[in-house]
């Protein structure tokens, strides 16, 4: 299963709320990719795969259709619980944190 073990360990602890005098807390921009679990029929993926040859695109296989959720989060340690409890249904979907970076100014 494509779980997630916390933010990339470049430090002993992940970046938490930044209470320094620099002002705003550090917020992370995160992308979560959610896909059907391997072995579970993905009719959307199959439909896309079957449509491609009609457009002249040959040799495309193993198409899967999932969804991408983007969010800004103050405490990345909450991500796993967020994914397991709401963003994905772990019975039928895998999720993967595909990117995490400091959120830009709004």
């Amino acid at each position, binding site marked *: 299963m494509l779980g997630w073990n916390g933010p990339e360990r470049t430090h002993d602890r992940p970046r938490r709320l930044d209470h320094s005098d620099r002002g705003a807390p550090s917020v992370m921009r995160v992308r979560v990719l959610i896909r059907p679990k391997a072995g579970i*029929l993905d*009719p*959307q993926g199959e439909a896309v795969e079957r449509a491609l040859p009609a457009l002249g695109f040959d040799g495309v296989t193993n198409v899967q259709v999932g969804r991408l959720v983007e969010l800004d989060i103050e405490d990345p340690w909450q991500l796993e619980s967020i994914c397991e409890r*709401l*963003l994905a*249904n772990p*019975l039928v979907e895998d999720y993967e944190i595909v990117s995490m970076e400091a959120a830009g100014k709004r």
Partner: protein
Amino acid sequence: MKFGVIQFPGSCDDLDALNAAKRVGDAELLWHGERDLKGADAIVVPGGFSYGDYLRAGAIARFAPMMETVIDFANDGGHVLGICNGFQVLCEAHLLPGALLGNANRRFTSRQVELEVLNSGGSFTRACALDERLSIPAKHSWGRYYADPQTLAAMDNAGQIVLRYAPGENFNGSVHDIAGVSNERGNVFGLMPHPEHAVDELIGGSTDGLKIFESMRMTVEGVHA
């Protein structure tokens, strides 16, 4: 007895469920944002597109205030029926095992289906005979039941696979032709077809759906078939 029928934003079969329930007992609508069951003896989570089915069908509805009450009610042994979107909500709330996925045929399908009763001893089918066929409409695009093989084996042993699509009727690709399942305790039941749409001969030509509501009445009132 009194049924409580939950009404979410996006419910569309709530009034038919209310009508069906009123044919066997009292019934009242329960607004999703409230927490009071208003004295209901059993709960119906109706069909529709609660909260627009955003994210996944049932994923948001399970966190509604009324659902928190219903989860406690079910955990205390209260009887809860989930129909179509209600079945999806109950799976998302982990009151029922498994999940509902997009139909294998990728199409919204609306048709009458023949179901077989595999367990007539349960709280929701005791007005039925074993192997009896029920003719009930189904209409959904997200009704392919799935559970992993280990879960299915345990469910089968425990009699939790209550309704099955008759041969040739499984249009959505559900595993083992499963149409309706209960929890292990037997007090929560969900199915994709719509018993509330099969309660009047004039509309649809079948009253088989009434048997589900009648079974619930018998269960709550302690009547044995």
